């Protein structure tokens, strides 16, 4: 399988996993070079972390912000954020 084919398959796979669907309109054919960039699931582990999202099961007790601060500290990252607080 070509790189572009793998890239498309990856995007379609994560989209359908989340319950959505991509209906593509193809404008032209083109392939992608193996010399630069990388398939998202083949990033080196450090890169994978830095470009990653954790689907976290928030524990009861601490606030969303506290949980994010813990994760940030655990990984020793300069930045971390969440997709919407969970204390409504």
């Amino acid at each position: 399988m070509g790189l572009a084919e793998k890239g498309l398959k990856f995007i379609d796979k994560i989209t359908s996993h989340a319950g959505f669907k991509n209906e593509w309109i193809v404008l032209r054919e083109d392939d992608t070079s193996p010399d630069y960039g990388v398939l998202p699931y083949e990033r080196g582990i450090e890169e994978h972390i830095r470009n990653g999202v954790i689907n976290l099961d928030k524990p009861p007790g601490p606030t969303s912000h506290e949980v994010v601060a813990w994760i940030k500290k655990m990984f020793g990252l300069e930045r971390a954020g969440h997709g919407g607080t969970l204390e409504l």
Partner: protein
Amino acid sequence: MDKEDVRPRTCRSRGYPRALARRRLGRGNPKVTGVLPVALANATKVIGNVIHTVKEYVMVVQLHGDVKDKELLDVLENFKGTIYQKPPLRSSVKRTIRKRTIFELELLEHNDRYVLLRVLCEAGTYMRKLAHDLGLLLGVGAHMRELRRTRTGPYREDETLVRMQEVSEALYLWKNEGDERYLRRVILPVETAIVHIPKIMIRDTAVGAIAHGANLAVPGIVRLTRDVEPGKLVAILTLKGELVALGQALKSAEEIAGMKRGIVVKTKRVYMKTGVYPPVWRKNK
């Protein structure tokens, strides 16, 4: 002194499991758990994108009086569709009455004074308020006792949902034993945060310019999803599937398909670092 020691009985009431009551941490502090997507380092740039997406919750509401099943079901009907909510006193937004849509509201269980509900709603709907208002309409009063979020846009309560414990174990295994397999299972690629929005995949030769903040023109596009519409936020991806940037579409997918040239997406938020793909546009000049 431990809070649990001084207040063991105050939070117990009819029908509520003793084990749960005992574990409660503070008085006005209901148990809130579930799907909380946490973005690491660079991914923080785009995680805000999932904030304004559909949410699903499972909630335990405690009624302050006895209510019949039939009455409860009737009152719940009033909360389906468009509702008006004033954000609670302690909230992070301006306290003006807001319109919110409840897409689905399902009564899962009604046991004595406890009601278990499943709610599918628009972003920014306050569950605590919903429970309170339900009590008002029932005429007995009610409050939210426990809340679990089961969905935030693209993230759901499925095999990707992990606990803090699993995160820390995976991190340990990588750091101390050099085994990264678990960490790869715990951390999802940032691209999972854009699956719910329209997408455009571009040629390698267009990537460098976009990473520098340029707008996207038609010749750079290989394929795009049918839901691209003017004004909508779109994800610009490489052919390998890497996120390059978020942008605002200026034309619809149909229009773009019929065009030969011209700017069609205004780049709003660049994700990819410069220098990952070669700066082809320089050579052409």
